[in-house]
């Protein structure tokens, strides 16, 4: 029987576990700072303290999720493995198992202690990061695709189309988010298939978006156009069938229906805000002379929207993208907090926080605090990153 770790030992153990992440982080920073003058906006980020802190925090979790998810490093235990003797044990308690055999490859300690079911808090936090890093950026990208594809024409054409879309966007935005989640992300709703239909609508947007993108750019060169559009349609529709309809003809792509609901709900909540931002930017940019020049050249409206207007809106959109990933992370946490859309066991930061909350009054802090700090640091990092990006892109 080994002795419990002291605070120094706990930190030391964590450093050992995080070694791959930290190495990758230091390497990235060393390389980036060396070549920062040649790296454009990304390089300029290293002139801003806030931006660097933000990037470090974000990369920390990205690398952690990568090493833990792909290479199976960092985490010390199976996040779902329970050990009756480890229930509510303090950080640094040596690992033991009352019933069954201990996994010989598992770590010697519960670095951050055990939760109310005797699972390793540290490994659960790490497992939670994989989920967040996987879902939040992709959900945000999809929300952007939807918001951009609808916001561009709404701002560019105006009129009835704009009025209707803006009305719908305001409708969704006036709806309390949690109520929406409660209505959408329940097993009963999954039964009716509504999320699948919504997914079917929302997920077709990226395919439409890319197809129009190539068509408008290369319609003068049909050969090139056919190649690009063809590739987009084949890959896009294949992914689309797999993700939205669970009907991949090759059977490779599947998306757990549970996760699909969460994904759809998050995209649905974010898209209207993106729509509003894009629409506002388009209203501003479309008065520029280069847009008029494209019009007098006889360019089609989609070429103008996608190739003349959109690239020039990238600055504010990039900043909003970072902020929105943070917001999505918060939303995912909220979902977990209310226990929506998850299997009851799975490691999720929001769920871990609410589970740990119940024990706070019993003075057991180590279950709720680590996931809370993890979520906080990631969101904070994204916000700092956005702030740094905004500051540096303005400085020109």
């Amino acid at each position, binding site marked *: 029987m080994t002795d419990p770790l002291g605070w120094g030992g706990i930190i030391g153990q964590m450093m050992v576990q995080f070694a791959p992440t930290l190495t990758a982080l230091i390497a990235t920073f060393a390389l980036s700072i060396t070549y920062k003058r040649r790296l454009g906006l990304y390089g300029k980020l290293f002139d801003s303290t806030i931006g660097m802190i933000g990037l470090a925090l974000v990369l920390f979790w990205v690398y952690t999720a990568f090493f833990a998810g792909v290479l199976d490093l960092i985490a010390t235990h199976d996040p779902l493995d329970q050990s009756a003797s480890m229930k509510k044990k303090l950080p640094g308690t040596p690992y033991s198992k009352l019933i069954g055999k201990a996994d010989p490859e598992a770590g010697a300690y519960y670095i951050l202690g055990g939760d109310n079911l005797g699972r390793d808090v540290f490994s659960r936090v790490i497992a939670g990061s994989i989920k967040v890093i996987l879902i939040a950026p992709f959900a945000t990208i999809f929300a952007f695709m939807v918001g951009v594809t609808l916001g561009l024409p709404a701002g560019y054409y105006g009129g009835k189309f704009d009025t209707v879309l803006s*009305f719908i966007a305001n409708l969704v935005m006036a709806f309390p988010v949690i109520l929406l989640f409660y209505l959408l992300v329940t097993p009963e709703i999954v039964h009716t298939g509504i999320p699948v239909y919504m997914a079917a609508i929302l997920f077709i947007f990226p395919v439409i978006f890319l197809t129009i993108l190539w068509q408008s750019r290369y319609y003068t060169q049909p050969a090139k156009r056919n190649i690009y559009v063809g590739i987009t349609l084949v890959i896009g529709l294949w992914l689309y069938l797999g993700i939205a309809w669970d009907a991949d003809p090759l059977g490779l792509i599947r998306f757990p229906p549970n996760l699909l609901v969460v994904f759809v709900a998050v995209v649905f909540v974010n898209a209207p805000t993106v729509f509003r931002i894009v629409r506002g930017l388009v209203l501003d940019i479309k008065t520029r002379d280069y847009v008029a020049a494209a019009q007098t050249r006889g360019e089609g409206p989609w070429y103008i929207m996608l190739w003349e207007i959109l690239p020039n809106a990238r600055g504010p959109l990039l900043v909003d993208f970072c902020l929105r990933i943070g917001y999505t992370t918060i939303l995912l946490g909220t979902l977990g907090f*209310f226990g929506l859309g998850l299997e009851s066991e799975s490691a999720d930061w*929001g769920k871990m926080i609410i589970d740990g909350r119940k024990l*706070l009054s019993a003075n057991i802090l180590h279950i709720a605090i680590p996931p809370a700090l993890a*979520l906080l640091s990631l*969101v904070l990092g994204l916000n700092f990153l956005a702030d740094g990006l905004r500051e540096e892109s303005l400085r020109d």
Partner: protein
Amino acid sequence: MLLTALCLTLLVFYLTNLAPNLEKLAKTQGNFRMTDEEVTTYLANHGYAQPFLAKYGQWLGVLPGYVIIGHDGQTRAKCAPESGVIETAPRFCGILQGDWGQSSVIKKDVGTVIADKLALTGKLMFWVLVLMVPSALLIGVLAGMREGSRTDRTLSTISITTSATPEYVSGVLFIAVFASSAVGLKWFKGTATSAMDHATFENFFLPVLTIAAYGMGYIARMTRASMAEVMTSQYIRTARLKGVSFGNIVVKHALRNALIAPFTVIMLQFPWLLNGVVIVETLFNYKGFGWAMVLAASNNDIELLLGISVVSVIVVLLTQLISDIGYVYLNPRISVT
């Protein structure tokens, strides 16, 4: 605005009246071992099997309430409580007539439930606004007044941090630090249940702070951005070169212009604050509006859920209206006539 409210309630009505939800309702109200057939009978007896739009119309009060002679021979009417006399019941009984229906979880009239809960949440929100708005504006103005200064950097970092901390994180941290004996401060109470009857600083400050902190950061950032922009504008330079002192420039020339943008933001914060309320009320066990919403939603208490949606949508729309009016008042460039 009315249209928005109608659309939203229609949507909620649709989602709550989906077949699986009704089945669940029937089972919770009757018993869990009902057969499919029994479920169908139950739903038909209670008017749930009517066409969707008919149900919606009745709920609104534009269609006469149903009177159904059930398979069990009992006659039930929407407008008459279970045991009431059907003959004397009014024909219409929707929200337009002030009848919000019966909550199936709390077993009370939805109108009363909402009124109670709204009063509790109103108390919470009042203090949140009292704490949040002035401090957010102050932070924003102080930071934006001299862009790039040390004060600015410190205050900006603080406001970014608070706006990046969701309520369920800050709430947990606050409880851990200020309310648990593990850290040992024990300044405040970790639950606000007792604050429902009589709120004290000790039992009410943490929930208020938790909601306020999240919104505060965001408003402060908006105010800062707006203030910083105004301070670099030409008319501020005009004022400076007119010999106006710095204090007067900020108060007389910059403030009104700088508040135009954040004002709308404060008002649009309300849907978000409502979120915060739900989380914080759950977290601190304060049985207000948000808590009732969670209760209603997790039990598919259709009438209560609808009532809550209507009220929250109205609150949101009202704040939008106030923000439009205030915007016109603040910005002389837009006149009402």
